[in-house]
């Protein structure tokens, strides 16, 4: 694979994807194999190959749709797309980048609120204790999503089968974890 396109100046979203992940949208020739194999293609508003197409056009309107899509949040990062892609377009890291951009630019799709809430609740739990506290995560998620009755049927069974810890597990060096969070996801954005 040649890498002699460094002379191209590209300020579009596709250009930023290339810069941050190395994925070149132009390599995709729209065969659709990724969309065909994607397990959640039918849950997405735009299947993966269509997301790719919208990056290829360079049209700011399409870029908006990408960042505001449900697709990027439904993506399971199951890596099926890259396993089958004939042009080896590495979609999973691209999706990761689009997700973080979507949050950064405040464009996350409202329909995906629950998925994002779950992730945020998960990370909150780790930030506090260093390891996931499932009960805490569940409560946090319910508060964020207002899905108070969800999964109520299985909670008793889980408790009975000793699958839920009542108390969180605290690691010793929680300070290290908090620092990691501060230097990465909680870092105040420098004005570029």
């Amino acid at each position: 694979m040649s890498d002699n396109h460094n002379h191209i100046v590209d300020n579009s979203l596709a250009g930023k994807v290339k810069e941050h992940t190395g994925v070149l949208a132009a390599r995709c020739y729209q065969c659709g194999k990724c969309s065909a194999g994607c397990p959640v293609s039918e849950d997405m508003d735009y299947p993966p190959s269509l997301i790719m197409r919208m990056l290829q056009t360079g049209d700011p309107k399409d870029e908006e749709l990408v960042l505001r899509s449900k697709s990027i949040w439904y993506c399971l990062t199951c890596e099926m797309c890259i396993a089958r892609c004939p042009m080896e377009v590495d979609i999973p890291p691209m999706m990761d980048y689009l997700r973080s951009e979507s949050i950064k630019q405040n464009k996350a799709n409202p329909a995906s609120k629950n998925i994002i809430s779950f992730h945020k609740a998960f990370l909150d739990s780790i930030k506090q204790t260093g390891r996931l506290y499932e009960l805490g995560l569940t409560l946090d998620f319910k508060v964020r999503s207002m899905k108070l009755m969800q999964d109520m049927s299985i909670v008793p069974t889980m408790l009975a089968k000793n699958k839920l810890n009542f108390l969180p597990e605290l690691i010793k060096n929680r300070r290290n974890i908090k620092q990691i969070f501060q230097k990465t996801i909680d870092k105040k954005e420098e004005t570029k």
Partner: protein
Amino acid sequence: MKLGFYPGCSLEGMSREYSDSVVALAKRFDIELVQIPDWNCCGATAAHNLNKELSLSLPARNLALAEKEGFTDVVVPCAACYSRFSTTHHELMHNHDLRHKINEVMEMEYKGTINTLNVIQFIDKYIIDKIEEKIVNKFNYKAACYYGCLLVRPNKVLEFDRTEDPQTMDVVMRKIGADSIDWAFKTECCGAGLSVSATNTVARLSGKIVDDAEHRGAEVIIVACPMCHSNLDMRRSEINKYLGKKVTTPILYITQALGLAVGISEKELGFNRHFVPVNLPKKAETVQKEEVKTQKVEVE
């Protein structure tokens, strides 16, 4: 002998039976699995979905801690944690600047000497050659080996087995007498981390998997990932609702299957924690030194 061990949050909590079975199985083969001291959550799906550097720093901390303890092989039974560890190792080893950055973030140095083993690699390296003489109950059931996504993909990073129709788990299962079947959903995603936030999707994806295995006569589905187990087992009522029928095929961790074969009790293996009862018919006779036929399969 002692090996490094990273249980991860699932094995400590919801999937405790997986941890119990891994540790019990290891003990039967005189291996002590020593947890990386003060290990932290690897970040799972949430971290890489929201922030790249966080998603690399959390696993890297564990790798650095493992190095400090003097481990080389670290057993990571959760496939998602295994994926995060392997990806982190791969990215840090291929990108000098990134490695410096992450070392700086976590205030530790990772030198790249850790060899992460998923549960099948652990079995292949330390157990499989010695298992024949310890088998007391042949596991002669029809088993559908379910690999899921993260054990075999992305191939360029993991370099483990082949991405289509993988065989490593099947080979292990055949060694303990199972009839490991050919089926169509070996590596199709179960719905992963959307279990809580998009349960309908999980019901559909996991439903298709369970349905195909049952259709082809599988008596049990073998997994090597706590998230897969959870989706296929704990979410069975949603699956049944989606399929419009009741499927009773139990889900077993590969270490539970091996544990059964070498005579570890169902209680010790944590069967009572499953949502779908493990009612395997008593076919297995106590066997002494019988030749276990293994099928020769080419793994590309």
